[in-house]
């Protein structure tokens, strides 16, 4: 078996498959290692994305889409319902098909995928690391590469082995439980978000429809809040009240690092992308498209670095990421931290104030503007980030 590659990518999620596809399409030999037996399974994700973000990165296949979302419904702790105009639309994906296809597209570009390969160490080399050790079907194996990409998700161990502190602070780790419920009666174009200390402290509960009476219903709460009561308990309580007739087709756990992007994304010949690099949007917890966007940049930079045989070029990747998205994510993180401190009464007050606005002013931005009144220092952050006042 060939074991010498230009690039080894650890983890075949959306970010890993994207970096593999881009690097391979520029002529690099790429090995993509996935620890699970099946790419895309299990799905640890609410599966919602904005159409605009996704179509910037990849040509959308309609088989990936379970439902098209045209409205958001925000429910405050006291039950006030705000439906802001989202100024576009979104999708709830079928990640089983989506992730599978992204890996397939990587192989079509020339990358090679191996599943059931659990990477457990980096191999030291003269200039950084020369490869990875991994176990597969009971055997301990090695593969060598010039560049190693850690796309190993929330666990982010590749980075740790390379000397990067990838540990997520307990406060920033959103600990999640989700059920995919059948036999639920919902509007198929509405994503619901529920807030409040009794529903999802320091986080939110989501109801994302997938068509045919099926929905992803999940809770994400901060690790700090989870000390008192764990995510699955919150979810079970909500589901038994709201969807007593439903059946859970899947019950799954997950963790989302809602933190600012890591300060170090490249160390020698090791590059981090996606959740492993903390590139999730810290405000929403959405990580699919931001991880893929980072992976696209990383893939291009890696290909360039290989062509010119210069590892220093890899540093273009953090520069390009931080210039736009990284900077925004730092602001989103500060905003999230501030919103976490809002008591339930404040959230209710924001909701009632938004409801007092004229209907055409009830946009996502309108909700933010009202929220900003409660935390004036957020205004300056918003101005810096979006150039708005």
């Amino acid at each position, binding site marked *: 078996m060939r074991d010498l590659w230009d690039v080894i990518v650890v983890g075949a999620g959306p970010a890993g498959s994207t970096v593999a596809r881009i690097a391979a399409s520029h002529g690099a030999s790429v090995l993509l290692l996935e620890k699970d037996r099946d790419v895309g399974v299990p799905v*640890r994700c609410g599966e919602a994305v904005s159409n605009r973000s996704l179509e910037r990165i990849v040509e959308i296949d309609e088989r990936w889409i379970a439902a098209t979302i045209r409205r958001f419904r925000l429910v405050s702790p006291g039950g006030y319902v705000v439906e802001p105009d989202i100024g576009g639309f979104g999708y709830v994906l079928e990640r089983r098909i989506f992730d599978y296809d992204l890996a397939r597209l990587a192989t079509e570009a020339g990358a090679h995928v191996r599943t059931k390969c659990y990477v457990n160490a980096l191999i030291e080399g003269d200039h950084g690391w020369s490869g990875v050790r991994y176990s597969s079907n009971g055997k301990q194996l090695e593969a060598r590469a010039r560049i190693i990409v850690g796309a190993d998700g929330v666990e982010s161990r590749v980075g740790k082995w390379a000397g990067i502190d990838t540990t997520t602070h307990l406060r920033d780790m959103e600990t999640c439980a989700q059920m995919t419920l059948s036999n639920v009666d919902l509007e198929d174009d509405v994503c619901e978000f529920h807030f409040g200390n009794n529903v999802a402290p320091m986080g939110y509960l989501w109801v994302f429809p997938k068509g045919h009476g099926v929905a992803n219903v999940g809770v994400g709460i901060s*690790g700090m809040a989870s000390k008192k009561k*764990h995510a699955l308990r919150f979810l079970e309580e909500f589901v038994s009240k709201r969807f007593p007739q439903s059946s859970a087709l899947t019950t799954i756990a997950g*963790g989302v690092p809602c933190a600012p992007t890591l300060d170090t994304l490249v160390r020698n010949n090791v590059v981090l992308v996606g959740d492993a690099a903390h590139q999730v949007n810290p405000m929403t917890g959405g990580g699919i498209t931001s991880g893929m966007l980072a992976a696209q940049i990383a893939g291009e930079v890696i290909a360039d670095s290989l062509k010119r045989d210069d590892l220093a070029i890899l540093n273009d990747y953090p520069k390009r990421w931080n210039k736009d998205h990284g900077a925004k994510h730092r602001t989103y993180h500060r905003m999230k931290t501030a919103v976490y401190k809002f008591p339930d009464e404040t959230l209710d007050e924001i909701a009632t104030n938004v409801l007092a606005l004229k209907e055409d002013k009830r946009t996502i931005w309108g909700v933010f503007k009202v929220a900003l009144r409660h935390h004036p220092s957020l205004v300056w952050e918003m101005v810096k980030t979006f150039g708005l006042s």
Partner: protein
Amino acid sequence: MVQGRTVSQVGNGPSPCSITSMKGAVVLLIEILPNTCDFCGCCVGVCPEDAIELEEAHIEIIEERCTNCAKCVWVCPFEVFVFHAPGKCKEVV
């Protein structure tokens, strides 16, 4: 690779409090409840010591690295970990 040992793998022997380390190392106070883990990786993400091995369907605490900080206990969505407080055991080092 350093292989770890979980309290759950000790079986029905003495309680964690009474497990004394021969080398004076920290005694593992965290137990993984069998057949409860969903293998999501949340605990690995918050572990400051890289003390958890998590394969597709296998989880293990690397005892030599674990400092009993309990972040895994708090963060787990499914309550897979149990922290056995030392209680009256004064000799835990």
